[in-house]
């Protein structure tokens, strides 16, 4: 057990050009946005992003040039807003690849990695064009003769997570749903985490059954309150739908490329740290989102 606390910029040094980067959370929930922003600023390139339900964070990374491929089960702007114009533009023009698996199949690919086996058998995705396009192989049960789909283990080079609580060694706890964070982290070679709170290990111990991942799975811990903003963090703050709505509006007004570039300039590349960005967002706005979350979960 070693002290792994560092800054987001230091933590993002775990990512190298060409890496497969897995992003925890789901849609606008517990997305590690502070790490996404730091990754945009780092100028890494040739990355592949993998995440089961992905949206805005993928668009930022694709337009900024970091990511040129997706391994996902779903990508859109968010259910309110429909199809992702960035992904449409880049994929339809052949500038980015989009590898599609079903939600469970992708989840099991992470789980195979987490379990330390090269594949897992499943009854999903069979017979569909997802199967046909995935080039996933089949496997026959040696006991029953049943044919199943074999999904290959997916081992990210780096996983990004955002959690409610971590100690300095990297023992992690969250509230609410866990998304696919556990399997993603256990499958990945390196794991980088932002936490709303860094707590003493004694506080982790107090609710040891709630610990989602143990310290030896984690490589870097970053203290970052509101680290999932503009998404939600269960029980702590609601997603800022107005912020996201104005992002979407920007894409509609300026077109996908220019819209995202404008957003990045306003919010990411001209802000030295995520805290600077949060200050730009404004304290009252953040407080209102906390209030909404409290009302929604009590």
């Amino acid at each position, binding site marked *: 057990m070693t002290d792994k606390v560092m800054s987001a910029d230091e933590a993002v040094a775990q990512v190298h050009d060409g890496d497969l980067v897995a992003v925890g959370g789901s849609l606008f929930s517990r997305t590690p946005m502070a790490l996404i922003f730091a990754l945009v600023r780092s100028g890494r390139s040739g990355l592949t992003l993998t995440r089961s339900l992905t949206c805005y964070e993928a668009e930022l990374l694709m337009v900024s040039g970091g990511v040129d491929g997706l391994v996902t089960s779903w990508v*859109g702007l968010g*259910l309110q807003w429909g199809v992702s114009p960035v992904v449409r533009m880049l994929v339809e023009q052949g500038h980015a690849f*989009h590898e599609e698996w*079903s939600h469970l199949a992708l989840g099991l690919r992470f789980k195979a990695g987490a379990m330390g086996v090269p594949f897992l058998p499943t009854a999903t995705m069979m017979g569909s*064009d*997802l199967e046909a396009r995935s080039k996933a192989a089949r496997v026959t049960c040696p006991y029953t003769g049943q044919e199943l789909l074999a999904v290959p283990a997916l081992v990210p080079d780096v996983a990004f997570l955002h959690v409610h609580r971590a100690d300095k060694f990297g023992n992690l706890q969250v509230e609410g*749903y866990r998304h696919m964070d556990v399997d993603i982290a256990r499958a990945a070679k390196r794991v980088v985490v932002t936490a709303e709170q860094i707590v003493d290990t004694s506080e982790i111990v107090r609710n040891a059954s709630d610990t989602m991942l143990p310290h030896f799975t984690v490589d870097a811990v970053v203290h970052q309150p509101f680290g999932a903003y503009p998404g939600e963090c269960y029980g702590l703050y609601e*997603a800022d739908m107005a912020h996201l709505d104005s992002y979407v509006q920007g894409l509609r007004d300026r077109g996908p490329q220019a819209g995202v570039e404008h957003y990045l300039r306003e919010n990411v590349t001209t802000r030295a740290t995520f805290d600077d960005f949060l200050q730009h967002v404004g304290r009252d706005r953040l407080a209102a989102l906390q209030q909404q979350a409290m009302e929604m979960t009590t």
Partner: protein
Amino acid sequence: MSPASPEELRTITISRMLDDHRVVFAGVGAPLVASALARRLHAPHLSVVLEGGIIGVTFRDGSLPVSTNEMRAAFGAPMLTDITDVFLYAQAGFFDYGVLGAAQVDRFGNINSSIIGDHDHPTVRLPGSGGANDIASLCNKLLIVTSHESRRFVEKVDFITSPGWLSGGTTRCDAGLRQGGPAAVVTELAVFDFHPVSKEMRVCALQEGVTIDEVRSRTGFELTTVADVGQVAPPTSVELQTLRKLTGVDAHQ
């Protein structure tokens, strides 16, 4: 009270198919709203599951969740777990119903939500499966709800994102899918089932005031019918009022 919109009509019709004490794996949108409505009316002990890891969704009037992982979907549920875990319950056969919408559906109940046009040079790259493929592959009974337009009701979908009966007959089972398969399709025009042997979609019952010719004219493939095509009972005012309370549409408009 204004009459039911096409969307409301579909939602009410499909909600009636969800029996009490069962478990339904609902996609977002109309499937989720229909599940909420069923719980409010005839199926108070229906358990609604969302792929976000939420088992036993409760619903607040005027504040239905938009996605499958957000606080308003989670709060009040007796169990929160992870995403893959929820699908593994489906794979193990615990879920009585899956309910899905469809961007494109064909005569064998196959659904496309991935690609319009050619895969390598798509005309439109849609969001993709999410959990739809898994819901269609693994739930014991699949119910599909969609608006009725001939560009949606096609002979063969451009891409099978979520498997129905594939090419009909035994092809679904032959492909390795031993569970489930589509049982019904609900639109604002009619309710459809699938022939027990050929697995072709067929008209089962018509919505109020709709003729079979109207259905045929808005369907992109040849439709058969069951022996005696029934009538879907029109929405009751209780159904409509309850639905509008749920969705936050003024019940007295």
